[in-house]
């Protein structure tokens, strides 16, 4: 959040509809995303109750666990879900492409994308992955081979969802809230129906009215995984009881009837969210994609390729938790990615850049003077060091010596030489290096010309190399020493799923 987005919220209140906080889309939306809407049984850890899943808005697959406390039925659910998810994922294992910049390296030409309604949906996916990926496929407590495989893929998606650069798994509320500001609070934005109500209210309704309507759990069932308590108490409980009763009575027909009635009851809770999900997808597709989105999606394709090949090569499932080295390495990666994405968003999107300008981390203005051919002969050899003067109405934190970067010329460094403020305007003299070719005269257009309107930021979207970490087996005594090598344990395999 920033003053700019908060102002947008205020405007939304007055306007009665959500306001954009981005001019472009900063996430990748695939051509065939897999939408996954899970429901969980209240009170139990990751106990699936039902789900709607599929890549075709017209043909969702409905999965139901008639008796969620029955271990076998839960694994049956996992197997059914695996059938949907794995078939979808395998669809991306066909076409490959060369990996640019790497010799003889190929990767898959596209990657799957998993969309859930909200962050809780991601958390549930992680739990489901955790509870299935260690299962054994033979011996005691055996499950179908697809179950642990599903667990590994769900875990993969959920872990990618932690990276701000990844679009492999996204929550609809996150995506929408990142591009629009509503007239309500972030807490209330977690309600997908209310959020969409603000962004895209039904004709003849204000965003506020649409949001209010979406808060009525009877008319608009919550987007899960938690179900509405009154649904549990007044509907679900009776339906489940009927199923159990029919089974105890050993009456096959009554059992089928009761099961169908339960499925229908759950479907009523899932269908509205299913529709909302595809509306969200359509809204986001309506925005033009930011310039760096594709590069980030390429990184997602690499990650997908790596994991697919890891699985194919018989690699072990993801451990329960990161070891010392893995954790440190992952943190370093996340930190680098986070800075990179923040910069890329700003470079792609003037509205995002505006937030940095307001915060004094960037400025935009007009070039009032330029010495494109200036050469610095102070050093051992002469170097091209053009200078330009930019006049801006912004109030940047621009200290002498600080280095800035321009979205228009990301390869070029601009060092601040002088800053003079007068009458609400600030004059900033910048010395440029790089991105102008080899010779002592700059390539045409590589130095901003007088009159050109430019923007500069105190951050660049440049790539920093990953820091070096010890190998896991060299974990030092300060961090508990080398970890015991991972061996899947019986306990993990049999861990009863209450």
């Amino acid at each position: 959040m920033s003053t700019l987005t908060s102002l947008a919220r205020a405007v939304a209140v007055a306007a009665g509809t959500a306001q954009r906080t981005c001019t472009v889309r900063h996430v990748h939306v695939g051509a065939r995303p897999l939408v996954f809407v899970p429901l969980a049984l209240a009170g139990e850890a990751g106990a699936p109750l039902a789900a709607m899943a599929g890549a075709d808005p017209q043909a969702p697959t409905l999965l139901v666990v008639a008796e969620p406390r029955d271990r076998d039925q839960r694994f049956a659910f996992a197997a059914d879900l695996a059938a949907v998810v794995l078939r979808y994922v395998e669809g991306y294992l066909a076409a490959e492409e060369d990996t640019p910049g790497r010799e003889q390296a190929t990767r898959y030409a596209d990657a799957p994308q998993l969309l859930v309604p909200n962050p809780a949906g991601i958390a549930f996916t992680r739990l489901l992955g955790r509870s299935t990926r260690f299962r054994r496929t033979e011996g005691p407590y055996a499950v179908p081979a697809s179950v642990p495989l599903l667990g590994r893929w769900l875990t993969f998606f959920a872990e990618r969802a932690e990276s701000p650069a990844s679009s492999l798994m996204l929550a609809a509320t996150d995506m929408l809230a990142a591009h629009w500001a509503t007239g309500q609070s972030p807490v209330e934005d977690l309600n997908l129906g209310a959020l969409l109500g603000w962004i895209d209210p039904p004709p003849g309704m204000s965003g506020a009215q649409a949001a209010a309507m979406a808060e009525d759990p009877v008319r608009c069932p919550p987007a899960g995984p938690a179900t509405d308590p009154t649904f549990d108490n007044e509907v679900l409980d009776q339906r489940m009881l009927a199923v159990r009763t029919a089974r105890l009575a050993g009456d096959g027909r009554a059992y089928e009837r009761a099961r169908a009635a339960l499925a229908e009851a759950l479907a009523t809770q899932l269908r509205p969210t299913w529709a909302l999900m595809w509306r969200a997808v359509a809204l986001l597709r309506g925005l033009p994609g930011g310039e760096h989105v594709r590069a980030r999606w390429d990184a997602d394709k690499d990650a997908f390729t790596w994991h697919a090949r890891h699985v194919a090569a018989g690699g072990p499932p993801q451990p329960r938790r990161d070891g010392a080295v893995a954790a440190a390495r992952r943190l370093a990666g996340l930190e680098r990615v986070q800075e990179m994405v923040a910069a890329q968003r700003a470079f792609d999107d003037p509205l995002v850049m505006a937030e940095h300008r307001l915060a004094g981390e960037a400025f935009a203005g007009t070039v009032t003077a330029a010495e494109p051919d200036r050469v610095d002969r102070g050093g051992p050899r002469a170097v091209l060091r053009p200078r330009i003067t930019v006049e801006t109405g912004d109030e940047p934190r621009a200290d002498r010596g600080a280095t800035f970067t321009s979205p228009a010329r990301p390869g070029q460094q601009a060092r601040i030489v002088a800053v003079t403020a007068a009458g609400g305007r600030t004059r900033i003299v910048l010395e440029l290096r790089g991105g102008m070719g080899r010779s002592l005269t700059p390539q045409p257009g590589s130095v901003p010309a007088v009159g050109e309107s430019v923007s500069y930021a105190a951050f660049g979207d440049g790539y920093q190399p990953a820091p070096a970490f010890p190998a896991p087996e060299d974990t030092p005594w300060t961090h508990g020493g080398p970890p015991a090598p991972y061996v899947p344990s019986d306990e993990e395999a049999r861990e009863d799923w209450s």
Partner: protein
Amino acid sequence: MLPSVSVTKSVETLERRIVALRAAVREAVLAGDRERASTLRRDLRAAERAWDDALAAAEAKAAAEAGAAAEAGAGAEAGAGAGHADAAADADAVHAAATAAAPAPQAAARGRGSLLPLREQVHEALSLLTVPAAPRLIATVHEAFFGGAFPSARLTSLKRDEERSFRAAPLARPYYICAALTADLLAPARGLLAISTWPMERRVIGSLSPRVDFLTAAIRVAEAVERLPAPVPAARRLLWRFAASIPGAADGAASMQPHEITEAALAELAVHQAADRAARQAAARRAREQLGDAEQLFGTRIGLAAGHRAGARRPAPRRRGR
């Protein structure tokens, strides 16, 4: 979605009514209007029953036309009937014990088949355990070793019936399912059942007795498991639940050995026995001196003064699982 797509007008109207009623009930609940909610709830249940019966009938009819009239019709009715019969009882049982997987069909069948009256099934289980026990354990033991399942909820009323019949005609029966008594006040110990023919020492409960009785029960169950001709999963599950709470009894459900569990239990018993026996003997002596026959079996109660009754509402129930 439903088989009832191909179905009579009545079912469709019923379905519309059910949908409407469900919404109405939930709205009433959300609005905090309890009275209205419960009225609507009654209508809803009625509608749901009607809908189910209508479907059953329809199917039966279809089946009949297919020429399997007698069999299918009977099945459907039995199904519907039995269904609602259990529904009520089962409901409580299930809510009292959410995590207990519903009994497997065949076990259930055997349960219904068992001809013994409930009090004798309880007697069977308690006699195996040889110590006072809670309804839940009694039910589990009976299902594991005597193949009869009964919702433990039904046992709560049993003790009251026994006391009534005893007071009507004392000692008319060879045994009564009676209470265990708290050692301090000789009052009925909450939620424990015992057999009247047991010595008083066994029926009074001191502060160590729950542990001692748990260990004793573990030994009896272990012995019973060893006596079984063929392994019964339910019985081993039960034994594992004991073993898991006895130091050094077993490493895992798969690898546990009944005799090792017995030894471990005996080892801990040795630590508690003396202190527990002393407390129980003293209490038993007091009981025999101070109490009449009925009180010896069903305990005394500190009289509830009106004031106390008023103050006796429990603290507001605490939300769980949130």
